[in-house]
């Protein structure tokens, strides 16, 4: 067992950011951490990387209870490394950045140079070894930050949104590196992501967070997907065996995929008045639950299946929505929403 978490809480002021009753993370496996913005993904990563202290609760790391005191934290941090969503590189060359972790561990220069060469090769940045680290692009910075983390051969690698704000080419490279370091070096990997397809393709297990709590049940807005040809009406995606969705142009993207994830903040919800006709590409439904959370309103809309919709408070008030309001839901499908599960 790598991590064992019991009754872990992180509270800022009066807001509970994270509240996990129990969680076990196995060694040598890849975990994805998913959930909407503000679900507590980064907070959990910070606690797992020992960069933050929980308000209450316990974390066992490799069987030992963690005491959040300087000396023990320093020892633990030498085994666990986190790569931020927006990593920062130190002033100096790329090579010096990558060698930093080794240098502070007292590794000899000759060996440092060899490791730096190896990891930079691994991330495809060998030619940048003498380049000024502050002149790199976002994707390059992420790759160098990853190389810097891998150079110290950690037991655990924690990545916060490893492919966010990175072009498609760099995304593939980064995902490949992560997979390789888990497979070849047996590094346990936990990464936070918004992309369910990324989570499904890379991770062995998925941890879903919602409002700081583990979501044990069904993942929000994840539905089975089926392609259906209806005589006379054209092609349809059948979502959750209930909703028919005519999306001809995404036929190739969805081919072979059997799941779809509809991000709650991409769904629009419009109040339907009795006399109004329903617009095409929308589903009628009723609001069954309303919850306000961190400046956003979370609605559960029953439109044959329960859809979670996230909207701004201002928009919610403008439309005067409420429980039992009849609404038209529109969700545009995008290639990134399809995955195989």
């Amino acid at each position, binding site marked *: 067992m790598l991590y064992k978490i019991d009754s872990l809480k992180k509270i800022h002021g009066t807001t509970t950011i994270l509240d996990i009753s129990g969680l076990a993370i196995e060694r040598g496996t890849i975990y994805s951490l998913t959930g909407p913005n503000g679900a507590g993904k980064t907070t959990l990563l910070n606690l797992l990387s020992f960069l933050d202290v929980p308000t209450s609760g316990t974390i066992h790391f490799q069987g030992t209870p963690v005491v959040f005191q300087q000396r023990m934290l320093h020892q633990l941090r030498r085994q666990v490394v986190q790569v931020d969503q927006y990593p920062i590189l130190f*002033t100096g060359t790329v090579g010096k950045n990558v060698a930093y972790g080794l240098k502070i*561990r007292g590794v000899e220069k000759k060996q440092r140079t060899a490791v730096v060469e190896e990891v930079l090769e691994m991330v495809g940045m060998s030619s940048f070894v003498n380049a000024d680290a502050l002149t790199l692009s976002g994707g390059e910075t992420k790759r160098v930050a990853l190389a810097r983390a891998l150079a110290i051969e950690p037991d655990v690698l924690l990545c916060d949104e490893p492919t966010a704000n990175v072009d498609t080419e760099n995304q593939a490279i980064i995902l490949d590196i992560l997979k390789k370091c888990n497979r070849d070096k047996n590094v346990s990997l936990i990464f936070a992501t918004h992309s369910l397809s990324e989570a499904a393709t890379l991770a062995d297990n998925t941890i879903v967070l919602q409002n700081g709590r583990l979501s044990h049940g069904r993942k929000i807005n994840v539905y089975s997907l089926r392609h259906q040809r209806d005589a006379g009406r054209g092609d349809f995606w059948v979502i959750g065996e209930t909703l028919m969705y005519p999306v001809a142009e995404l036929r190739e993207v969805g081919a072979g995929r059997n799941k779809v994830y509809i991000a709650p903040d991409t769904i629009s919800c419009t109040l339907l008045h009795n006399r109004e006709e329903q617009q095409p590409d929308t589903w009628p439904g009723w609001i069954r639950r309303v919850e306000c959370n961190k400046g956003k309103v979370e609605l559960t809309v029953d439109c044959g299946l329960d859809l979670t919709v996230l909207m701004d408070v201002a928009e919610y008030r403008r439309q005067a929505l409420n429980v039992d309001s009849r609404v038209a839901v529109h969700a545009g499908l995008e290639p990134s929403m399809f995955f195989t599960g």
Partner: protein
Amino acid sequence: MELLLDSLRQAFMLLIAGDPELFEIVGVSLTVSTLSTMIAACVGLPCGFVVAFKSFPGKRFVITVLNTLLALPTVVIGLVVYSFISRRGIFGPLELLYTQKAIIIGQVILIIPVITTLTIAAISRIDKRYRRTALTLGAGELQMAAVIFKEARYGIIAAVIAAFGRVIAEVGISMMLGGNAKGFTRTMTTAMALEYDKGQFVLAVALGCVLMAFAFCINMLFHFFQGRTRNDAL
């Protein structure tokens, strides 16, 4: 006007001729100011790091006190230090009064708040991610501080330069604790005050020119490093 121009001309001649008295005074000034800046930096920089990084009760109060101490008049420091090192003071037996050491003690007290507050400001401007990154890569507290020091180096150098500029131009402490003894504790500023009292302006003007030249160079350096900090932040 004629007096000033005449004094300026003669002062210029004095500088060109390499007047030994003038250079002796400049030497004392530089020695005393450099030593006090170095000692104050040894105290002020770590203090700045601790205040900037650590959370402790009364942190805001400490910062407010440090900011208040920036406005401490030199004569007040002179008076307080005098009460400790005069014959009747508790450090009287050490016979520090009217020595360069006495001036250095006073000047160190004067500029520790300057270095500390400017160090706090320089570190506070540094991206918080540097600290997290160093820690997650396995750095200890001192190794992490070294990373921050490196990233904030221009701001910290600017803090030390500003402190040097403050001591080389001060007169109250040097006069009250040094006593303006010729060739021993006579600094540029105390010598200028004395020459003014005597009604002889030539040496005073010459020293004034040297002091202004120093002030100019110090300010150039200060703005150079401040500018580097801003450019780096872009």
